[in-house]
């Protein structure tokens, strides 16, 4: 049975570093599938106007389409052309929780993410997605600096 890596992308530099490291790891493992995941930050407990609610379904489709074409598909295409077995997934939710949930669902062996690009005040109070993932993940997590 092949190993499975989940690579969390964020559409920025740290995600690309995670991707590069994931490739290296996959080559070392040999028989390895890669699942590229992009999580759109979203919470069911936010406050919205009635108009936003009415358009929510449409916006969600748009967000998924943008994330798929701009982030996930290029990454999967790159991995495939490099000779890896790769698939992609886009989902809404809390970044740390959702990455972990997807990894568990897909029986992954490890999660690879980039070091958080967030900083400053909000990450001091709420913690970054990366540190949340490290603290709560149900499997090994590699954080790429």
């Amino acid at each position, binding site marked *: 049975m092949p190993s499975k890596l989940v690579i969390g992308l964020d559409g920025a530099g740290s995600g690309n570093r995670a991707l590069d490291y994931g490739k290296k790891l996959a080559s070392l493992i040999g028989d390895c599938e890669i699942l590229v995941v992009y999580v759109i930050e979203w919470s069911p407990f936010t*406050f919205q106007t009635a*108009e*936003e609610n009415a358009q929510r379904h449409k916006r969600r489709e748009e967000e998924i389409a943008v994330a798929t074409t701009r982030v996930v598909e290029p990454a999967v295409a790159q991995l495939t052309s490099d000779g890896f077995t790769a698939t992609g997934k886009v989902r809404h939710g809390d970044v740390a929780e959702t990455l972990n949930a997807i990894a568990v669902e897909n029986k992954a062996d490890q999660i690879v993410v980039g070091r958080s690009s967030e900083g400053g005040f909000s990450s001091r109070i709420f913690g970054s997605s990366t540190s949340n993932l490290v603290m709560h993940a149900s499997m090994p997590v590699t954080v790429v600096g």
Partner: protein
Amino acid sequence: MKTNIRHLAGGALATVLASPALAQEAQTLDQRVNEIFAQFTGPFVSFIFAPFPGTAFPWIVMWLVIAATVFTVYFGLVQVRFFGHAISLVKGDYSDPNDAGEVSHFQALATALSGTVGLGNIAGVAVAVGIGGPGATFWMILAGLLGMASKFTECTLGVKYRNEYPDGTVSGGPMYYMSKGFDELGLPGGKILAVLFSIFCILGALGGGNMFQANQAHAQISGILGDYPGWITGLIFAGVVFAVIVGGIKSIANVTEKVVPFMGILYVGAALIILIVNFDMIGWAFGQIFAGAFTGLGVAGGFVGALIQGFKRAAFSNEAGVGSAAIAHSAVKTKEPITEGFVSLLEPLIDTVVICTMTALVIVISQQLIIDEVTGNYVLNEAGTAIATVGGVSGVELTSAAFASGISWFPYVLAVAVVLFAFSTMISWSYYGLKAWTYLFGEGKGSELTFKVIFCIFIVIGAAASLGPVIDFSDAAIFAMAVVNIFALYFLMKLVRRELESYSARLKSGEIKKFSH
């Protein structure tokens, strides 16, 4: 205060219309508008608020309470049986993780609440307790508990018969369930009811959802900053609302939507602090509420007076049966329309049973209402229309004084809260009005823009002028929505019961189960 506002209104309107030199003529114009308006709308207003012969009890209040009682009985105390389930739904226990990113039950409920929690909870309750005494609180709570069943009925239908468009947007509300639901049952007249409802909804949105809010917000601001022309407040409000609903500047609405719940929590928190500090008086306060509910404790109209005030203010505050909530709740993502009905049960509970009761308890415990030491009854003011208060204040000022007796600086927070509540209510009602407008005139950029511009103009008028008849008329329009809506609900409630029976059976059999998150 009232005459002051009216005086200012004339001047303000004049400045808006032409030059200050024409103020005198504008004043008469203002009066003329009032007169003409009153002539045309007077019969409608008197009809809606007409009391039962020989009593002071407005039939419209009875209409709402009877409907709420009928729905409570018909759905077998749905508000009790499914209360726990409603909480689970809001927590997201039954939400499919694959639907993440869609409108959640919590979001639909929060949006609906931001439309109803507002001046009714702060000023309306003070009016109820000020006139009807502490006993009004008892009837208010009862009306809130019964109103949960009305919300359940209309919100289930709102989701069931909403329109889902190919571009992914949704539109729902009484106009859709009236036309589609009546068609489904093979009944005639659904379309006519839908058109009638839409007309009243537009008028209600411009009036109670707009002019009244702008007017009261200005009253609060000028109460702190000192008197200044209302049109200034109106223009600022209109500018901000315009930026949000026409300019699409979401950040303002987003900020408000985040601050308003915080204000609500702050308000309840402050009330709780006052109650905790005076915990030894809570028993006494509930004693006053129960005694007042059945004896009146000397208020005008006795216990019937307390009952009328309690029922009336609860209806004004939680809008159960009015149909507005059915529009707000309809965007939720769910395969089971009835789940949103269960969630909407919580709305009158939070709005009326929790927040309104907090306000009432603080007013009673702060002893702003004067009690005759000898008889233990409340002392009436000189006119004999309301209970005498410590500073002779009423309405929002009474609430303010009551909170100030516990937390001296709270009136400033309250003023900010009132302004924000007014703003969020305006944003909500602009949407309700728009949905009714597009139902009548079709969806399209031009049609929508027309309504939005009209809406903003009415903000300026509302803040500038205390056009009594116009305000009366708009309140009447909101209640007229309830006349049409509840009439339709009586025919459609069997469709809801069908859903309820099917859903409870599947819930019991385990076919509907929680998702593990």
